[in-house]
């Protein structure tokens, strides 16, 4: 879908531009920024990230697996060592914990990748290298007929450059 991208120099103007866009029913847009800024998040009013659910589930699975493998393997061939019980839950807590951390954090990473769609093979439209350095950017996906209006809007808020993306 075609659209246009505006590069901003200042944070506040970006924020204002976002606000204006949404008020003018431009809802299909992506904001680029070299660093995470709460101002932007507030302006966009995006739903909270769902990463935490993955983390929780991963953690729980991990803990269970940790305990399970230790206990199951011990009982699989019950050999007595040092007169201790064959399956002892106290030391096995270590496995519960370690595997919880392992699987939990890995699933968090997986969530991050899955939700934010990385790794991706191609650079997408509407991105500009400046956005990883000093500039903020807004990519508005819009039909050709409203493109002009959007461009106006971005410029008004002091976009240093507005470019049309095919």
């Amino acid at each position, binding site marked *: 879908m075609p659209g246009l991208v505006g590069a901003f120099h*200042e*944070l*506040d103007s970006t924020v*204002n531009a976002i606000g*204006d866009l949404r008020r003018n029913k431009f809802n299909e847009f*992506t904001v*680029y*920024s*070299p*660093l*995470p*800024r709460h*101002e932007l*998040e507030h302006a*966009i009013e*995006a739903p909270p*990230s769902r*990463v*935490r659910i993955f983390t929780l589930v991963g953690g729980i699975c991990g803990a269970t697996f*940790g305990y399970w*493998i230790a206990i199951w*393997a*011990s009982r*699989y061939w019950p050999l007595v*060592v*040092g007169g*201790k019980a064959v399956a002892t839950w106290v*030391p096995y807590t*270590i*496995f519960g*914990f*370690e*595997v919880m*951390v*392992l699987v*939990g*954090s890995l699933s*968090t*990473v997986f*969530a*991050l990748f899955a*939700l*934010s*769609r*990385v*790794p*991706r*093979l*191609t*650079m*997408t439209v509407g991105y500009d*290298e*400046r*956005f*990883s*350095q*000093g500039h903020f950017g807004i990519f508005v996906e819009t039909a050709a007929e409203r493109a002009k209006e959007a461009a106006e809007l971005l410029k*008004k*808020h*002091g976009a240093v450059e507005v470019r049309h993306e095919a």
Partner: protein
Amino acid sequence: MATATPPVEMRPNIPSATIRLPAVKDYEQVDREIIGTLKPTLGWFAALMTAIVCLLIGVSAWFYQVYAGLGVAGYHPPVMWGVYIITFVFWVGIGHAGTLISAILYLFRAGFRTSIYRCAEAMTVFAVMTAGLFPILHLGRPWKFFWLIPYPNWRLLWPQFKSPLVWDVFAILTYLTVSSTFLYIGLIPDIATLRDKETNPVRKAIYGAMSLGWRNSDREWRHFTRAYLFLAAFSTPLVLSVHSVVSFDFAMALTPGWHATIFPPYFVAGAIFSGIGMVFTIIIPIRKFFNLKHYVTLNDLDAAAKMCLFTSLVVGLAYLTEFQIAWMSGNQFEKDYFWNRLFGQWAWAAWIMLICNMVLPLSLFSQKLRRNPTWLFILSIFINIGMWFERFVIVVPSLSHEFEPWQWGSYAPTWVDYAILLGSFGWFFMWFLLFIKQLPVMAISELKEVLPPRVKTAGGGGH
């Protein structure tokens, strides 16, 4: 049509980061200066070569040991563990400070963390990589090490999950995985920056692949901040757990001098202490040679030095407590052993440990010294030595002086032990040196967070 947008407060992103980087003006400067450090220099190259040579020495010594048998090392029953286990614990310990700084301080929003955490974190990963080698190369039959990993096999046998060594396997592997993931995730946005500033197409492609096509989009940042937070939250307990588990290797045995409940906290404190020592050893030269003094400010060093002092006090307390416990235990074996530690065969090692780890760090009570990089560097070297000897004092004297007087013995490492010890440093610094010239030694995006953002008009708003 005037618009009523909420005024944007122009403060740095990290609330508690009251400290500022006065000498750093804007985002572009950060990019310029940090990425500027990546240009290889002759000195760097020389250092790298030295590291690799050390590594090769260690590797060849190890091959020789595998061929001829563990007897070529200085083992002297009953001292069945020696330099390798000592060095293992030493490196694991080093790792901890990195995670502490990058994870715990992140949760606490400690500002001085920003400039040093990337180095510290890399140090963690490489230290754990180094430590991970030792349990394998101290084995009598290293080619069988995989028997410690639970996997289905046709012997129908599994590891013995009650053994602290298996706990180690899990702890170390988890720690390695999580900390390296943590490091990499934090790196992604910076690699994206490198990618975008890079002109050489090949390097650009590599950076592109490594950045996984990161775009700094709002959606990415939204999940990123979350994920990073949770990873930090996961790493935090690891800092405490990993070295506790390592300490179980000793605490779970009934050897006099090992069999003590104080070990886990004592080891964790020691680990962080040694880690911070190593951070100084690394960061101080970097800020000097990379001209990053205005990023790693004296305030930062001061703050880190305070942590160092604190952990040193904890460790010192632990030392004294051990003696007090032995003294009051009424357990003859313990008493004999601790007497032997201080005044016996191994007194020299014990005193090195006490002086380097307990006495010298007390100097950090003086703010002047805390803000004196040269002193911090010298001190950090002493701390590294002292902490190595702490592990020596734990491992060797205990084993050489156990229950059975008839089997009391001595211990003297051979050139093989020393070569492999040297090799471990070569291995560590090889990775670290490679790191600092390929990837930014400071978190670009986070440094930007410390800076006040550029704004059109104070109070904001359109016109």
